[in-house]
């Protein structure tokens, strides 16, 4: 039997040389008589080990990593001499059985169950691992039964706002209209997040299946995936997957012979962070400037082209196939309080072991860091951790004992958001980070609300004055007032949440603003 060897075609692995490694293996195999077949799989999300190469054995897959093309010959010798003779690996990069790698073993992978295991565009492999099971079950249900299942699962929007997904679906289902849309928000712009990208690059059929089910549930026959253009590999893989799903009758005018219609298209953004905000995204999809809309009307009632529209994050839609296939209870049993199910956390920044960590809600941030990070990449102490993207708070090292659930984070004036965790060591200057938050808002504000458009520019100026010791005490008061104005006077999260990282910087790191702890407490 031909032995399979797996080399990821996922973007992080590629950015670290996976294509070159694959070429080297191909070259080696062409010069040696070994019966091996190369499969380009997704990634397990253990990024410090990428490119991670796996070999199929009777006990499971054996891994090597991180592999460079220079390691290929010696790995091939190890495979021929040991693995193919059912002997243990003997190589400096040997990692043993992939499933036994502690980082993976400690996780609860529901959404990422298939990631890195399959060839992302192999429909057969998807079907063999429960793919389209949720769709088959949904096709036998009424629209209300599907919506009720999603409500009962407790799933909340994974884009950041954490609005109950089922309630949104109910609103769209109950709306009367000649046309409805399913829009997938794949404009994953938050720094420190890559879970959406991993779904699309490693298990695209799961997202497609989730969108088809959403379409069935609310009576929508057209879906769009609004994908950020910074993700060209996700685009390529999604296009392939959509083509394959269409050819196999999962998309189009007669889904699995049911007579139901659902068509799906990928649309690219064009480097505008604000288009991750759902109403700006809809404007962009309509071919306009990505200006935020006033709400109401809610997009659920007047969304894309003023039609009832579900706008859901990739991870929300990707959770649907599991919920429909295994039942609401199977999903709902994970988690804590009102945060049900799992969240794929993304550990990034200055850590030794960055990657995708899917866990039930509820463990503490400190435990996650202690159990997974392996310490900082620089070997210096942690000074701050920004959770929830550029609009999330910077948490100081003494405040990490916070449970990872939506409510606990809002109570601490912090943001769990899309689950991105960015670690900084003690070389970071928090005044510079606060300045960057304001600067980012200058660059990315859509310009609709004055406090966001102009306030952010003033924010940069005020922070520069504080830095240069120009009437520091007065400018601190001004900065705090400016934060209030931005919070109260901005329509969307861009303007109203930029103050969160800024305030956390001067409240929890007063020394970087040349303040005593007492001076930093303006609230």
């Amino acid at each position, binding site marked *: 039997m031909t032995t399979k060897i797996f080399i990821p075609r996922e973007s992080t692995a590629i950015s670290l040389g996976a294509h070159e490694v694959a070429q080297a293996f191909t070259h080696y195999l062409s010069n040696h008589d070994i019966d091996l077949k190369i499969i380009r799989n997704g990634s397990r999300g253990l990024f410090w080990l990428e490119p991670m190469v796996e070999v199929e054995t009777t006990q499971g897959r054996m891994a090597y990593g991180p592999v460079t093309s220079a390691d290929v010959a010696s790995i091939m010798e190890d495979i021929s001499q040991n693995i193919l003779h059912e002997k243990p690996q003997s190589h400096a990069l040997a990692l043993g059985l992939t499933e036994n790698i502690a980082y993976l073993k400690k996780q609860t992978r529901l959404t990422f169950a298939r990631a890195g295991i399959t060839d992302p565009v192999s429909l057969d492999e998807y079907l063999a691992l429960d793919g389209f099971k949720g769709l088959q079950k949904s096709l036998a249900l009424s629209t209300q039964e599907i919506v009720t299942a999603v409500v009962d699962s407790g799933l909340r929007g994974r884009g950041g706002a954490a609005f109950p997904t089922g309630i949104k679906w109910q609103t769209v289902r109950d709306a009367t209209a000649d046309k409805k849309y399913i829009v997938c928000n794949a404009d994953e712009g938050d720094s420190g997040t890559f879970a959406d990208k991993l779904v699309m690059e490693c298990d695209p059929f799961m997202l497609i299946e989730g969108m088809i089910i959403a379409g069935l549930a609310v009576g929508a026959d057209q879906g769009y995936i609004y994908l950020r253009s910074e993700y060209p590999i996700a685009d390529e893989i999604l296009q392939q997957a959509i083509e394959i799903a269409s050819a196999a009758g999962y998309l189009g005018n007669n889904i699995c012979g049911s007579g139901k219609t659902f068509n799906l298209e990928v649309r690219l953004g064009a480097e505008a962070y604000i288009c991750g905000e759902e109403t700006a995204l809809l404007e962009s999809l*309509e071919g306009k400037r990505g200006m935020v809309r006033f709400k109401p009307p809610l997009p659920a009632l007047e969304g894309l082209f003023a039609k009832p529209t579900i706008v859901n994050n990739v991870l929300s839609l990707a959770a649907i196939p599991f919920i429909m296939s295994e039942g609401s209870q199977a999903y709902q049993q994970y988690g804590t309080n009102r945060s049900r199910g799992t969240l794929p956390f993304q550990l990034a920044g200055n850590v030794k072991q960055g990657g995708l960590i899917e866990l039930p809600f509820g463990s503490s941030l400190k435990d996650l860091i202690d159990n997974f990070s392996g310490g900082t990449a620089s070997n210096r102490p942690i000074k701050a951790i920004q959770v929830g993207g550029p609009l999330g708070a910077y948490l100081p090292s003494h405040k990490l004992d916070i449970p990872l659930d939506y409510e606990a984070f809002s109570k601490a004036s912090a943001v769990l958001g899309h689950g991105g965790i960015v670690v900084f060591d003690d070389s970071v200057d928090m005044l510079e980070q606060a300045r960057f938050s304001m600067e*980012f808002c200058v660059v990315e504000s859509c310009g609709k609300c004055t406090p966001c458009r102009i306030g952010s520019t003033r924010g940069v100026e005020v922070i520069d004055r504080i830095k240069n010791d120009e009437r520091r005490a007065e400018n601190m008061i001004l900065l705090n007032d400016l934060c209030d104005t931005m919070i109260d006077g901005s329509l969307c999260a861009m303007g109203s949440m930029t103050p969160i990282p800024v305030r956390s910087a001067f409240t929890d790191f007063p020394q970087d603003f040349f303040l005593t702890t007492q001076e930093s407490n303006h609230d």
Partner: protein
Amino acid sequence: MKIEFSSPLSNVENIIDSLKNKEGSLLPILHAIQKDVGYITPQAIERIATKLKQTPAEIHGVISFYHQFRTSPPGKYQIQICRAEACQSRGSRQLEVHAKDFLAIDYHQMTNDKKFSLDSVYCLGNCATGPNIRINDDLYGRISNQRFEEILSNLDRELK
């Protein structure tokens, strides 16, 4: 038999015609033109406006909103350095300084030989292995100053 002459503008016409009936067709049209021509020319703006029954000002308004769309030719290699927080925590601020110094240009500029243009980008989704850069459609992780120079030297050699 009709003989068709291929010119950039006729190509632009074809792109617009093939996409204009899509819902919300403007972004797909702009992407396709930029991919084909490298940037959105003033003539292209005129053509798009006519065919979509909008004013050139409206088309320009959309182009100018998005960082990606450009109205001037880019370098042969478009370098983007990620400026976002995760890359900062791994040294991108130093990389930015070095890149500008090495190429002797600032952001939104092009080298005199038109080989390289330099821009910033806010997150490439490679946040566990920064600092990251993108050159055209290729992503590169863990970029030290030295690695940056190596990659550019290799590309420079490819051009020769």
